């Protein structure tokens, strides 16, 4: 017997009047819970869970003092990743865009970070310091903004010219910048910088933004991410430290970073703004997932692909319902 689409819709929506069977959903739920509890306990006992200790500024400054020192100079010169980031931290750039949509720029600076003071001067000022560092700080604080920028830029340029080999940097008008960078490096080596970065502004602090951003400006965090196979270009978003499953459900988000033009930062306009475009794509796809029942083509896919014949095999056999003809 054939029915119209409207009648079939009403039939699907109406309470089932066909054959039924006894089905204890409370028992089913209880068995499922016991099964999951046992499985979870077994996996926990056998596998444990990942827990790589966090990186510290002390670890960075001790293991790669030159890189830490150069990063401190970049913070003073305003050339680090954070100093040049743009919103929501500062106005050094406009940030990323999706065509005419400059959302990052439009929301503006909501989490202001001044890399010079927040990352270098303020932490150094909390310390009992040597005469050399105290003098360097006093010189810096007494100087004009132009003088400070001139010293820091000159030193940063000189380091860049010798490709970071500090022993080859020629003498120059760098003012107190070398002493300040050395002071911060020594402070980090002593283990005092982590807490100093966090505690700015009061006793109770739960915001690690300054620490995380400063970390990312150097090579230490990036190297550790590469070593742990966590880089975005190698599906790192889905990975976890050690031999544990990560956020595998982010596979589609991660997928876009593996293919052109998203995986090429030099490719304009999309590759250079990959983060924004991929966010946009995933937003649309998420909306698409919710709206599948009304999207032509996709909503009728299950009727055309006979996977349902396997799911309801018993019903189709007992009712003698053959596969529909295309």
């Amino acid at each position: 017997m054939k029915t119209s689409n409207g009648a079939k819709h009403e039939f699907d929506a109406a309470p089932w009047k066909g054959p039924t069977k006894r089905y204890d959903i409370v028992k089913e739920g209880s068995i499922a819970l016991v099964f999951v509890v046992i499985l979870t306990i077994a996996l926990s006992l056998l596998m444990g869970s990942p827990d790589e200790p966090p990186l510290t500024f002390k670890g960075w400054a001790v293991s790669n003092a030159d890189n830490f020192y150069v990063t401190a100079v970049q913070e003073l010169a305003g050339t680090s990743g954070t100093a040049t980031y743009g919103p929501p931290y500062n106005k050094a750039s406009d940030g990323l865009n999706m065509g005419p949509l400059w959302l990052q720029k439009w929301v503006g600076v909501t989490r202001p970070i001044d890399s010079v003071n927040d990352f270098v001067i303020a932490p150094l000022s909390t310390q009992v310091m040597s005469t050399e560092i105290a003098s360097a700080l006093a010189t810096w604080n007494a100087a004009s903004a132009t003088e400070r920028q001139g010293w820091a830029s000159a030193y940063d340029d000189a380091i860049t010219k010798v490709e970071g080999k500090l022993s080859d940097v020629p003498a120059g008008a760098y003012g107190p910048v070398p002493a300040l960078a050395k002071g911060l490096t020594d402070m980090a080596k002593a283990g005092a910088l982590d807490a100093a970065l966090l505690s700015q502004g009061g006793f109770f602090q739960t915001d690690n933004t300054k620490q995380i951003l400063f970390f990312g400006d150097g090579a230490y965090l990036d190297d550790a991410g590469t070593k742990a196979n966590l880089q975005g270009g190698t599906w790192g978003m889905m990975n976890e430290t050690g031999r544990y499953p990560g956020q595998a459900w982010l596979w589609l988000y991660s997928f876009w970073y593996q293919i052109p033009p998203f995986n090429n930062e030099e490719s304009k306009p999309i590759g250079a703004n990959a983060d924004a475009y991929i966010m946009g794509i995933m937003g649309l796809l998420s909306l698409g997932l919710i709206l599948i029942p009304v999207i032509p083509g996709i909503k009728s896919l299950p009727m055309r692909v006979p996977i349902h014949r396997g799911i309801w095999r018993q019903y189709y056999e007992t009712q003698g319902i053959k596969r529909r003809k295309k």
Partner: protein
Amino acid sequence: MSEMWTAKLRNKWQKELPIEKLLPDDQPAYVASWIYVFGVLTLAALAMIIFSGIILAFQGPAWYHTSHAGKFTNSLHFWSVQLFFVFMVIHLWGKFWMAAWRGKRFATWATGAVAFIASIATAFTGYLVQTNFDSQWISFEAKDGFNSVGVGAWFTVTNLGQMLLLHVAFLPLILGAITVVHVLMVRKRGVVPPIDAQPSTDSEVGR
């Protein structure tokens, strides 16, 4: 009496979702596949996540780094999340291939899809509050995506306090509420009939 909001709500509830529908002791005969188990398995894993999460919340985010009991509880939380997503994804694919939105079940599908998205957000904030190297790395990398579309101005992945509150309070509340609505929708509408199922008599059409 019938003008009372309370009475109207009770009457509507009793009409739409009587206790026999909420806790039925029978099901259509076509409910005979392992695929039907994955919805309830997802709920069971969610219960395990909430249980282990409550213990972790009472002890604080750093407890599991230094305590064997903490490490084990964290492992329970970790693996129940992994199982939760495995079960939920199988459930979701199963419902897709069953076209389970048929017969006025759009809201059931939509709440399920929103629950899936809310689960991803909740798990993501969980990874950010591990207070270990992984959370350092994820927060540094993820900030660029959120900042690029302006969301980072308020949703600050590098802010441990904000992420912790969202993970243990706000997002579970949202996810829990959506899940309850989803389950109630399933019970209200019943399990979708098979594709190609036809009424056996004319009286079964268009009731």
